[in-house]
């Protein structure tokens, strides 16, 4: 048996708290290992020295201070008595608060999903725009649709139609 194998049992051996099997193993190892024999001897010395440390007495007034602090403790409230586990009480309170908060939220505005992809890219962008224009951020949608800049911009792309953007925006309405 190697030194490392008996290390864990050495303190129990020194303090005579080792089990019979542990004690047998250590004794068998010590018979052939001078290093561990010296170590056990020194551990015994350490253990004896630790025993020399005197005990102290709590100072005068210690008990009175404890009693004073205990007397100042408030009685547990009705909620704590109802739900004695502190963490459980906190979790329950958080759950209630979360539920109340969620109930007070306005109904969720879900954006209609865009229809299946159209073969024409322009139609797809119209559908996207249809979906987007309902969002609250576009408060001045009417102003945006009547902007001259838009009417000038689109005809350069599709010159055949005289006012394609106006038609387009009409259809979008």
């Amino acid at each position, binding site marked *: 048996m190697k030194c490392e194998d008996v290390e864990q049992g050495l303190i129990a051996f020194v303090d005579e708290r080792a089990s019979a099997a542990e004690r047998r193993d250590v004794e068998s190892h010590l018979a052939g290992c001078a290093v561990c024999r010296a170590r056990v001897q020194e551990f015994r010395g350490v253990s004896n020295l630790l025993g020399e440390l005197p005990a102290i007495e*709590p100072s005068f007034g210690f008990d009175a201070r*404890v009693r004073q602090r205990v007397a100042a403790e408030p009685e547990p409230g009705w909620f704590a008595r109802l739900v004695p586990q502190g963490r459980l009480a906190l979790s329950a309170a958080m759950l209630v608060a979360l539920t109340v908060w969620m109930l007070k939220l306005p109904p969720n505005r879900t954006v209609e999903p865009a229809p299946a992809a159209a073969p024409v890219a322009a139609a797809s962008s119209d559908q996207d725009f249809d979906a987007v224009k309902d969002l609250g951020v576009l408060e001045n949608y009417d102003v945006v649709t009547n902007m001259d800049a838009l009417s000038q911009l689109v005809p350069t792309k599709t010159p055949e139609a005289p006012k394609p953007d106006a038609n387009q925006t009409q259809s979008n309405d």
Partner: protein
Amino acid sequence: MARTDVQLMLDVKAGDEASFDFLLQKYRSPLVNFLNRMVRDQATAEDLAQEVFLRVYRARKQYTPSAKFTTWLFRIATNLALNSVRDNRHHRMGISIDAPADGDDAPPLELKAREMRIDERMIERDRVEIIRRAIRSLPEKQRAAVLLHKYEEMDYGEIAGILDCSEAALKSMLFRAYETLRVELAPLVIQAAPVSRSGREGRPS
């Protein structure tokens, strides 16, 4: 017939203040001594011991006897002591890493002091102080393990429960702690060795 600690605590839970006082009388001294060896001075130890009793009292309504009372009590004490030691170390490091040591607590930060410590302490301080400082030189968890093992005479299972580790880890921790103490206390151990040897030769090993 004497009531057990668990019974006393259940009585406290039921509102019997006298049972709390009984527990206070029974454990005030072990707790203050344990904490005094864990932290740097008696005043801090007593503050922490008060806090332990206060936490026991606060927890009375939720108390369920799932473990030994002493395991619960010393677990509270150990956690408070470990936090105090760590807070204190951070505080000291925050002030100045080069600050001179106060009289009571040797600075493990000063590497140079390590070479001089034994000789200086042999001259300047008595045995008890050397032993006390050797214990304080241990890492906090090892220190707690040694104190609970040596002074509270708890069994390995209970100490492992307090320190939240396996028994094998605890035995390993104790071995490392004794290795450190063997070095730290070498001059005293050597002085004591002839006496110890002669005292033990008759004892079966």
